[in-house]
């Protein structure tokens, strides 16, 4: 299956096939073959040309991985995504402008805006307290606050939508 792989500074087109525990990745420059096995749910031991790696997948964010403990943010776009993008629809950007969610679970101690407020990129949106630290969440975009999903004093899970900006 064809993929576009985006990670850090890299953007690579590759063909990945999986046959049982064997993986083959072909790019214009490489022809890698390796073997993977699950050690614990979401943790894999991978041998690539006999080099030994442990690859971990973050349970809550499938594109946050780590290799031998070193984190890496990975975007793996399959044919469907690539096709949509060709048609001019970028799923990532679309979503990015929309909802601001809690990146950590905790107590929302302060919300700085009400629906209808204009915000600039970098404006503080809300405070969330977790593990005894107060964290300020800034707006990733400029726009108008459309909706506030929670009230001050509310405890939220990771991923809960807090503010929608349009």
């Amino acid at each position, binding site marked *: 299956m064809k*993929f576009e792989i985006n*990670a*850090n*500074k*890299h953007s*690579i087109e590759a063909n*990945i096939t*999986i046959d049982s525990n064997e*993986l083959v990745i072909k790019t214009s420059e*490489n022809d*890698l073959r390796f073997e993977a096995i*699950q*050690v614990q*749910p*979401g*943790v*894999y031991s*991978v041998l*690539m040309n006999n080099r030994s790696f*442990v*690859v*971990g*997948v*973050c*349970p809550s*964010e*499938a*594109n*946050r*991985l*780590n*290799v*031998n*403990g*070193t*984190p*890496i*943010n*990975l*975007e*793996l776009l399959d044919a469907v995504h690539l096709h949509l993008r060709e048609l001019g629809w970028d799923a*990532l950007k679309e979503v*990015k402008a929309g*909802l601001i*969610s809690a*990146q*950590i*679970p*905790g107590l929302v101690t302060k919300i700085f805006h009400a629906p209808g407020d204009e915000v600039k990129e970098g404006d503080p949106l809300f405070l969330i*307290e*977790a*593990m*005894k*630290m*107060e*964290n300020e*969440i800034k707006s*990733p975009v400029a726009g108008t606050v459309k909706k506030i999903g929670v009230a001050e004093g509310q405890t939220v899970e*990771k*991923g809960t939508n807090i503010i929608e900006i349009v």
Partner: protein
Amino acid sequence: MFKKILIANRGEIALRVMRTCREMGIEVVAVFSEADRTAPHVLFADEAYHIGPAPSTESYLNYAKILEVARESGAEAIHPGYGFLSENTDFASDVSKAGIVFIGPPASAIKIMGDKTMARQTMLKTQVPVVPGTEEPIADISKAQKVAEEIGFPVLIKAAGGGGGKGMRIVNSSDEFEDAVGKAERESQSAFGDGRVYVEKYLEEPHHIEFQILADTHGNTIHLNERECSIQRRYQKVIEESPSPFIDDSLRSKMGQAAVETAESCKYVGAGTVEFLVDKHRNFYFLEMNTRLQVEHPVTEMVTGIDLVAEQIRIAFGQPLSVKQSDINTTGHAIECRIYAEDASNDFAPSTGEIVMLQIPDGAGTRFDGAIRQGIEITPYYDPMLGKLICWAKDRDSALNRSERALREFYIGGIETTIQFCRSVVKHPIFREGTYDTHFYTNFRDELHADLADSTDEVLLVAGGSLFHHQNQIKHSSNSSDSTKKTRSNWVSAQLGRNA
């Protein structure tokens, strides 16, 4: 000796204290909140008492309940660990009034040194130099702002009622001042139940160096040399070492003397830490005294061979110190890396969830003071520190190599941790040289966070791993089409989380 001690804490420090108690033949009593029913300190203890719901204000800070447990269990003494009630004057004196021994200094010493403003006033009467700043907590914001302007920006806003970087803010200019005070006050209130903060001068290329002291009830006060604690982020220590690569024997001896003088000035008893700032000209200033065991106490234990908790307990029982000042000599070098459940690449945001895989480093000179276990849930209720990795070796270079090896070997799956960040620090040329100061993190921030998996091979490997995981999940799911959708949409929302 005591027969039973209650440990009024949780996490790694509860376990740390319990280990020494058990080695001394003392039974240990744990207390726990609802969130900690199966926590390691509960499983370790001889007895364990439920003291309330998860939020610490209703459990680990509920000192009436803890006193009740002490009475019910017949504990003769209470060890408060650090944080929570360890520097609470009321708790210390109520414990004593209940006829139970508080393993810590007298309430009077906590009162003086625990309140940094009173501490400054006390220190101004001694020969020990102090950092310029306000001498009272901020009451009138515009008056305080004037003082800050006189001292000159940047200034530090610090909690009067506690330490550890909580309730602390650096302020670079006058117009940020009011906002920063508000934040610091709110954090202080939440962390220590005391919202008072004060202002202090920020020094040039400063080193944060602290001296461990021990004082008994027989009039003996000694110091156990220094810990270098200049590697900080968010005003919180990340890596500490002993000896400090910055100070020499002559400065060590002068500062040690000042530390002993500080302890004596408040009639200190027990284990305590005198923190100094040392500027690039090697001028040193008293910063604060922590009237409790410090998080980083193991580096001192590793180089001196002295069990600080055992000394605390002996002192509390009324015994004299087991060592004299002339007995103290250090062997080798120790480095501590604090492992937090935080995503270093996302401004150290707390990370919660289940530890799905755990491999703790071990071997010669490798100590991990933690309280984690594979399968355990890291909750958002408490401090995000999972534990501390302390590596000892015969010299600094070997201790650095050992730390690198141990961090590379350390694997915690399922949550984000600072393991990789600590590796970046330990490998950094300036850290290896030993020429860093407290600005290290700010100065090298980008380099430290750039240390990611980066070769094409690694990227392809991880891409393959990701796809393999994806297929693996489909295989193990009863409804494969649903699961595909779910994972794909996870990728998108996760991407948002990263970039937001």
